[in-house]
């Protein structure tokens, strides 16, 4: 073996360098270089990976838009359905509140029997203040039965068919209710009008009537039971030369929003027509 040959010398040098490098590496002298190399590798890998993902995103975006639109449409439909459900439930809550109030009224006034009814229509003629309810003779309803809500007197049943009844409101211009002013215990007559306003007539001149006085049914005439709340006095008109005072009345019931009513089924109206004297021959 010829050590002196240039080729052999080269091998020996390379081997020594390699061994030296390995020894240095094993001795931990290459750690900073190694760290720098790793950092560079990771950075390059991250850069490539991000660019690749961006490219994939770019290429798959149209497909995602379609699926997103579909998902959006589904969610919008779901939102619409939920909104409908919310409105339905709100309506049911409102109905339950009204029905609870009616139930409270029925419990607070146990002297009468009641049948609940829903208002399903109004008289087509503006001259008549009547409503149509969804109970009729099949439910034991008879003409003349008083109709109330938890807020007070509504009117009386005017006509009945098997499954529905027509109710004359106290605001009708042909309606007249015998009432009593609670504060002064004075009798008066509550009259409706073509505009739906209520007024009190036949109040004696010597009676003291104040705005805010509570008006209750008196029970006179036998058409309505006594002590049903009607409304309160708004203003009084007293003229010295007239026989009676008059007053305008704010009804306690909101007749424009009438939804549910109670019909008093065990009150028998008294027909006093035969007692009214007729002119003789």
């Amino acid at each position, binding site marked *: 073996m010829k050590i002196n040959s240039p080729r052999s010398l080269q091998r020996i040098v390379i081997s020594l360098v390699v061994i030296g490098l390995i020894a240095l590496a094993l001795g931990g002298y290459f750690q900073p270089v190694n760290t720098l190399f790793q950092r560079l590798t990771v950075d390059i890998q991250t850069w490539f990976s991000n660019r690749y993902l961006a490219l994939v995103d770019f290429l798959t975006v149209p497909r995602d838009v379609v699926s997103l639109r579909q998902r959006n449409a589904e969610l919008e439909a779901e939102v619409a359905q939920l909104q409908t459900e919310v409105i339905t439930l709100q309506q049911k809550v409102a109905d339950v509140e009204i029905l609870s109030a009616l139930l409270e009224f029925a419990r607070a006034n146990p002297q009468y029997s009641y049948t609940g009814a829903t208002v399903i229509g*109004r*008289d087509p003629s*503006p*001259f*008549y203040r009547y409503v149509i309810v969804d109970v009729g003779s099949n439910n034991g309803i008879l003409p003349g039965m008083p109709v109330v809500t938890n807020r007070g007197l509504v009117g009386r049943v005017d006509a009945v068919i098997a499954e529905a009844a*027509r109710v004359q409101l106290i605001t009708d*211009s*042909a309606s007249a209710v015998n009432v009593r002013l609670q504060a002064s215990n004075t009798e008066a007559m509550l009259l409706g009008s*073509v*505009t739906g306003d209520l007024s009190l007539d036949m109040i004696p001149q010597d009676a003291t009537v104040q705005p805010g006085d509570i008006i209750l049914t008196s029970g006179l005439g036998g058409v309505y039971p006594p002590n049903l709340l009607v409304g309160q006095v708004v203003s009084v008109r007293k003229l010295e030369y007239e026989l009676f005072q008059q007053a305008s009345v704010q009804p306690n019931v909101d007749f424009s929003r009438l939804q549910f009513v109670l019909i008093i089924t065990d009150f028998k109206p008294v027909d006093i027509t035969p007692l009214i004297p007729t002119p003789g021959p």
Partner: protein
Amino acid sequence: MRTFFTLLILFAAAISLQLSVISRIQLLSGNADLVFVILAAVSLQERARSMLWWSIGLGWLMGNISATPWYIFVGAYLLGTAIARLLARRVWQAPLLALLSVTLVGVFLLHGLTFVYRVLFETALSFTEVFSQVILPSLLLNLLIAIVLYPLLRDLIERLYPLEV
């Protein structure tokens, strides 16, 4: 037969809408009469048939639903329809104007008759109050409904009574 059933459904829907919705929409104390406006619109069609019978039937039905005596509705609807038929036969060139005219006459007939009946048999009413609070607002609402419904009804009526060439 198709026309009969279409009109039947149309008027049934109109009565239901009248009782549940239109009667609740008030201007002062007046409200519109959807049934009469539709009846007038159909009656103004020259090719329409049996409209007088329809007016009697609808008047009777409305009169039984309402507290108004049935013969007032029948009388007003019948007269209104008769006027509409007269106008239709005279080849009226402005159908919307004809509808508005019939609506106006119909409202005055119906409310005039009702007013007279209430005053004679039921209760005392002030004419000026009734005129300003009930009749005029009702007239305005009816005319508004006629204007709104006219294009819809025209399309429907043209399908019901196609022009024979």
